[in-house]
């Protein structure tokens, strides 16, 4: 093991501390590193805990802890006495100048071979999580696998360490400096999915005819719920990159797409955007936009008015299977719906959501539905 962390259990004979910091004379013993824990439960920092046996003498002991080629958060270093906590006391911590080191002053009431636990935050060692899901041909469920990727660029080799995540069993793993390991840690066979097509009128072009030779893709996502019905729900699913594949019915798969998921707490949904559908076409047009109920000041200047607006959206499904399109429309500020031929849910003050069920296309052509929305915006100021 190429350990760069050095601990000097020092029966410190002499400190030639005559003002020159570098001239410290140390007589040292090098205690072996015992149990080591790499704790990865915090996504932003990695905590290392290692146990060492210090040879302490009765009276005052100075223990020198130094490191080279690794990045340790100095203020995070802690020392915990395990065998004789009532008899061995940490008195002070001092930092020698211009050195990556610290010196513990420890008082002991007897001679002990004392096990201590040193913990610190170590940089450049972390973990990622990635997902791989294979959907069945009907796209009703996925075989979900999650991998833990350990990356160690800390400068330190860990020959054997207990690796702890924020859930699940700890496991033994060794990892060298500059090594990356990918471990399977979650496998769920039949996770139900919902496939979602979304047209958001604020994000996508309205009139495909006006786009020269460009298709408007309707974003397609898979929705997975992190709950027991989905063979999941034991713990939050970490954020990471997810790659989705689909069984092609010929003993092989195709790649559907990839997305990044944020952390998904238990009971919440994971939504993965896989690609765009060009077989559902939305043509949205504003058929009317006029000012009504105009109010003027004494100078005849318009100070307030309402609008009378009509929007139509033709939705065509060219697919040979049915689909449910989520259509999102936006009407800013204050408004009243005068007439709307499809049902909607108000998501917030200016967002309307329509769930539009589209049958499969027939021989005579695509399945067509049309949304007609006639509304008035109120009290608009010019």
């Amino acid at each position, binding site marked *: 093991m190429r350990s760069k962390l050095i601990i000097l259990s020092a029966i410190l004979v002499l400190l030639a501390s005559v003002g020159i910091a570098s001239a410290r004379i140390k007589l040292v013993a090098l205690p072996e590193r015992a149990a080591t824990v790499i704790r990865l439960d915090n996504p932003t920092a990695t905590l290392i805990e290692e146990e060492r046996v210090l040879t302490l003498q009765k009276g005052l002991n100075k223990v020198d802890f130094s490191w080279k080629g690794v990045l340790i958060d100095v203020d995070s270093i802690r020392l915990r006495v395990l065998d004789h906590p009532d008899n061995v006391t940490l008195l002070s911590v001092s930092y020698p100048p211009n050195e990556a080191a610290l010196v513990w002053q420890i008082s002991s009431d007897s001679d002990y071979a004392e096990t201590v636990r040193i913990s610190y935050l170590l*940089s450049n060692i972390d973990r990622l999580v990635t997902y791989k899901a294979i959907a069945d041909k009907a796209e009703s469920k996925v075989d979900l696998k999650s991998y833990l990727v350990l990356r160690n*660029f800390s400068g330190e080799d860990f020959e054997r360490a207990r690796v702890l995540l924020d859930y699940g069993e700890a496991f033994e793993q060794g990892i060298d400096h500059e090594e990356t*390991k990918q471990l399977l840690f979650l496998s769920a066979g039949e996770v139900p999915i919902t496939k979602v097509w979304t047209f958001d009128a604020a994000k996508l072009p309205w009139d495909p005819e006006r786009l020269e030779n460009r298709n408007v893709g309707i974003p397609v996502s898979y929705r997975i719920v992190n709950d027991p019905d989905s063979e999941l729900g034991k713990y939050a699913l970490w954020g990471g990159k997810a790659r989705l594949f689909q069984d092609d019915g010929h003993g092989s*798969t195709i790649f559907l*797409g990839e997305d990044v998921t944020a952390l998904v707490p238990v009971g919440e949904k994971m939504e993965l955007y896989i*690609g765009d559908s060009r077989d559902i076409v939305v043509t949205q*047009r504003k*058929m009317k*936009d006029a000012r009504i109920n105009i109010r003027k000041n004494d100078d005849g200047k318009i100070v307030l008015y309402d609008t009378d607006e009509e929007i139509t959206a033709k939705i065509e499904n060219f697919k040979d299977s049915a689909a449910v399109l989520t259509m999102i429309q936006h009407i800013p500020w204050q408004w009243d719906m005068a007439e709307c031929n499809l049902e909607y849910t108000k998501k917030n003050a200016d967002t309307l959501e329509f769930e539009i069920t589209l049958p499969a296309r027939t021989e005579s*052509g695509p399945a067509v539905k049309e949304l007609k929305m006639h509304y008035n915006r109120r009290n608009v100021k010019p």
Partner: protein
Amino acid sequence: MKYSLSILFVVVIFAATATAKVDLVTLPSRDTVQLTIYNSADLTLVRESRALTLKEGTNSLQFSWENTLIDPTSLEMLPKADADKIEIAELTYPPRVRNLGLWNIDSGVSGKVPVEITYLTSGLGWRAFYMGTLSEDEETMRLQGYVRVTNNSGEDYENAQTRLIVGRVHILDEIAELARRQYPYGRPGEIVPRAEGVERAGLARAKVVAERMVSDLAATPKEIRKEGLSEYFLYTIEGTETIPTGWSKRLISFDVDEVPVVNLYKYEEHRYGSSVVRFLSFKNDQKHKLGDTPIPGGQLRVYRTVEDSGHLSYVGQSGFKYIPVGEDVELNIGPVADVVVEPRLMEFRTENYRFDNDGDISGWDEVRAFEVEVKNTREIPVKIEIRRDFDTSYWTLQKSGDYGEFEKVDAQTVKFVLGLKTRSTKKFGYVLRTYHGVRQEDWTKASR
């Protein structure tokens, strides 16, 4: 031939002393390989099967990919037999070695085990292109669709089952960028540049390499089987293909004769200026001898048969977008001079002035009388679509003459559709009244 992917089966025999390690290496060959090539991104899914000889217990398998464009994070190996007895739970990318991965396999069986290795690579691509040949009367067209597969991956894939994906896939990182990384998953704290416009990059990527048909000795061209999967279409090329790195190959996707086409001409000043633009219009359906699958986007070159001996004249070319089954296709083949649309403003006046309390103008109408002359100088009948955009939604229109079908497109636009016989002229007129200032209020009252 450059064979850069190698797989080393490493049986590690530990002698009595832990340090004396003997590596026994075998090189199982690739039994079959399947390529699934995308064209919306520089991405190919490779699936290869190999037979490993495992011993009971722990086995180490080394996989290396020097000089290729493989994304190491996509590597996966699955046993195809005794899956319950073989556990492949760990893949290590060792330190200070590039393009190398080690699988640790716990096997409950010993002997030959078929495995499947999958990964994503870049450098392979395909595109669709088309040739259209119009009949002399321009009423029908022979439409031939081709795909051209290009391999710049650095790897020769021999006898590969080749599949093409039509569809727009969402990816976060360019595979080529992932392949170039020093460390497969990067380093902690490293900000990985996110590829922008990955989908477009895929289109721009494929550099044209010397084209040569690697002819198989088959008597008929290979068929391409097409099927829908999720939002994609999967084209499977019959049999296997060998496309060495640096080569590309053209394959026929479909060949349909006598597709009925409409010669459609469009006039729309806002989009095309004062030129008439020619379109070839048909539908991707059974009536047009198509409609089995969507047609992937590509370039179409249109020719016309000019005499009995089969000579051709080049008509023009058009970019082709993805056409779902059942959708109308309109192929823009550029401006023409033999069909003419001439709108003429014959009269302009303003009226109905309104004044405010200060005596300033607060509203008025503008009245424009147009005469539109439409000429077909061709030897074939044509259909003409004329769009007029009024830049306001406060308008009324009076029509006169032979204006054919008339339709309001949206709040500001109308459309006239006329059919014209061989060498004929039509004329129609319209009077457009637009409302300005407070006159818009009168328009609103009248229209309610």
